[in-house]
C-alpha cells in the first residue's frame, strides 16, 4: 500500500541522500519517495537532479517514462486490474464495463474517491484470471460479485 505521509522536503532529502552513492540510484530513489509519500511531488525533481548530478529535464524524463510513478496521490484504495490477453480470455473487459455501469468507476480516471482503478498488463496470476492487485494484495478469479465487495469495502474504509 502506498504511503500517505504528506510531502516533506526534509524527509525527501534524507531518502535521496541514503541512495545517492549507489550505481543507477534513480529508480530506487523514486520508489522510496513514492512508497513514503504515495506519489512523486514536483518538488522532488530539483532535489534528485542535484543529488545525482543530472538535469531537471532528464529527471522529469525518467519520472514520466515509467507508468508506476504517480503525479498525485490516490485518495483511497488502488485496484490494479489486469487487462492483458489471459485476463481478456476470461472477461476482464466485462469487469471494466461493470465498474463503469454499476459503480460509476472509470478505469484510469482520476484518483479521487475511495477507490481508483488502474489498468495493468499482467500480474503473473494468468492461471487464475481475471486478476488484480488491491493495494498490493493479489486477487484471482475475479467476477462481478467480488468487484462489488471490493467497492463496498473501499467505501467503508475511513479515509
Amino acid at each position: 500500500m502506498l504511503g500517505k505521509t504528506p510531502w516533506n522536503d526534509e524527509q525527501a532529502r534524507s531518502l535521496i541522500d541514503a541512495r545517492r552513492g549507489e550505481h543507477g540510484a534513480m529508480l530506487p530513489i523514486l520508489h522510496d519517495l513514492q512508497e513514503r509519500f504515495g506519489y512523486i511531488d514536483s518538488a522532488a525533481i530539483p532535489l534528485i537532479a542535484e543529488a545525482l548530478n543530472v538535469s531537471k529535464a532528464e529527471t522529469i524524463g525518467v519520472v514520466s517514462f515509467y507508468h508506476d510513478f504517480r503525479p498525485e496521490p490516490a485518495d483511497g484504495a488502488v485496484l490494479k486490474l489486469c487487462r492483458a490477453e489471459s485476463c481478456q480470455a476470461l472477461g476482464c473487459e466485462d469487469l471494466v464495463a461493470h465498474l463503469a455501469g454499476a459503480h460509476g468507476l472509470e478505469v484510469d480516471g482520476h484518483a479521487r474517491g475511495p477507490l481508483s482503478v488502474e489498468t495493468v498488463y499482467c500480474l503473473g496470476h494468468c492461471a487464475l484470471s481475471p486478476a488484480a492487485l488491491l493495494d498490493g494484495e493479489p486477487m484471482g478469479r475475479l467476477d462481478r460479485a467480488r468487484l462489488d465487495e471490493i467497492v463496498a469495502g473501499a467505501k467503508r474504509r475511513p479515509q
Partner: protein
Amino acid sequence: MIAKVFVPGDSSALAVGAGATARAIADEARARGAEIEIVRTGSRGLFWLEPMIEVETASGRVAYGPVAASEAGSLFAAGFLAGGAHAKSLGLVDQIPYLEGQQRLVFTRCGVTDPLSLEDYRRNGGLQGLQRAISLGARATIEEVLASGLRGRGGAGFPTGIKWRTVAGVEADQKYIVCNADEGDSGTFADRMLMEGDPFLLIEGMAIAGLAVGATRGYVYIRSEYPHAFRTFGAAIVKARNGGVLGADVLGSGRAFDIEARLGAGAYICGEETSLLESLEGKRGQVRAKPPLPAIKGLFGKPTVINNVLSFASTPWILAQGGKAYAEYGLGRSRGTQPFQLAGNVKRGGLVELAFGATIRRLVEDFGGGTRSGRPIRAVQVGGPLGAYFPDSLLDTPLDYEAMLATRGMLGHGGIVVFDDSVDMARQARFAFAFCAKESCGKCTPCRIGSTRGVETVDKIIAGRDRPGNLALLRDLCETLTDGSLCALGGLTPLPVLSALDNFGEDFARPVPRVAAE
C-alpha cells in the same frame, strides 16, 4: 510426532485464499490441541487446485485441494494429518497425473521446500551445481553450458554458452551478471513462481555465471507487478550472503560474487535487454542500437551477461548432472526442458515443464483439459503479446524454437493463452497494436507511429470502411514494423496481427454492427 502441513505462500495461491486457509488450519489445530508445523512453500503450479495443501505421511506427501478456509475443520475431522480421506483428497502428490506427466529439471523444489531455508535447499540437491562449477573452473563450466545446448529462455533463444564465452573472453576491470526478471508477457508466470518458490536456484545459477565469466556483481531486475517475488527474492539474497553462497568468498572458493535486486517501474519495454540495462542505469527505458552487444558493452558500459530467470535457473542442473545429460532432453536444436505456462480460458491452468517437442494440443487438451468455459477452443496464443494466435488446425505444431518459427510464430517465454469461441480476433489484432502503442519506448518510428496507425487501420476495417484497401494497408504496415523496428516490440507486434488475419480472416469480414453515429 509433530505433523507437517505444507501451505503455499505463492502469490497466485494467496490470490485465491491460501493465506486464510493457512490461518484457519493453525486456528483449528490450536483449538483441537493438535501439534502441527505449517511450512509455507512455493506452488507446485497446479493452480486450479489452489489453495492446495499437503501433509507428510509415511507413504509420501498427500495433497488436498482446493481447500477453502471453511474446510479446515472437516479436514481435521477426516484425519488429514495422517492422510485421511476427504472430499478434497487428491492422493499422493507425486501421482497426480498433471505432475507425473512432467519432466521437471528446473521446478523440482518449487512447492516442495521452504523457499527461504538454505538447509532445505541443500538437503534437496541445491548447490551441487555451484560446487561442481567451482571444482571444474571457469573454462570447463562454460564447456558444460555449451554442451547442454541451453538457449535463452527469455524468448530470443540465443545459445547461453556462447554468450558466456564471449563475456569471459573480454578483458575488463568490472563485469556484470544481469538477470532479466521483467516477465511482462501475459500468460507467463514461471519466473514469478521460481523467485517466490525456489529463489536460491536463481542465485545459484547467477553465481555459476559470475564465476564462469569473471563477474563479481549481479543485478536482478524484477518487475514491480511482482511485489511478492521482489520481497522473497530480497530475503533470499540476505540468507545466501549469511550462508556464504554470496559475498567475498563464494562457498569457500576464494572468489567473490554478490547480487542486488532492483525493482522495475511498470514499463513492458524494460523486458528488452538493452532497455533493461538503461533502466538499471537510472535512465528512461529506451532501447539501445546493437552493436555493441551487451556482452561487450553492457551495464555501465562493461561486459555483461544478461539472461532470463529460467536460463540461469537451468544451469545448476546442467552443472550438477552434466551438459550431455541435459541435451538428452528435447529435439533438434531445442535441447532440454521448457517450463510452459498454461493460462487464459483453460480448465487446468498451471506450470508444465516438459522437454521441447510436445505439441500445443498436448498442452492445452491433455494437460489443460480444454476451456474453463466449456466452449470449444478457438485460438491459442503462444509466446505472450508478441506471439502468434494458432487456430485448431495448427495445434499439432510441436513446441520448439524452429517449429514455432516455421509457422510464423515464436515460443517466447513459453506462455500459452487459450481463448474460446467467443473471442473476436479483429479485436485481438487491434489490442496488439494498442499495447505496442502504449508500451513503445518511442525511439524508432515504425513502432512509435506505426502502432497507432495500426489501431486506426484495424478500427476502419472493423467499421467496414474500404476493407480491401485497409487490409492491404495493414499488411504493408506490418512489413514496415517487422523490417524497420529497432527491437522485438515493434518487430514482432505483426505476429499476433498477421496470425489473426491469416487464420481468422472471417473476423475481419463481419457485418458492421449497427451503432449510433459517432
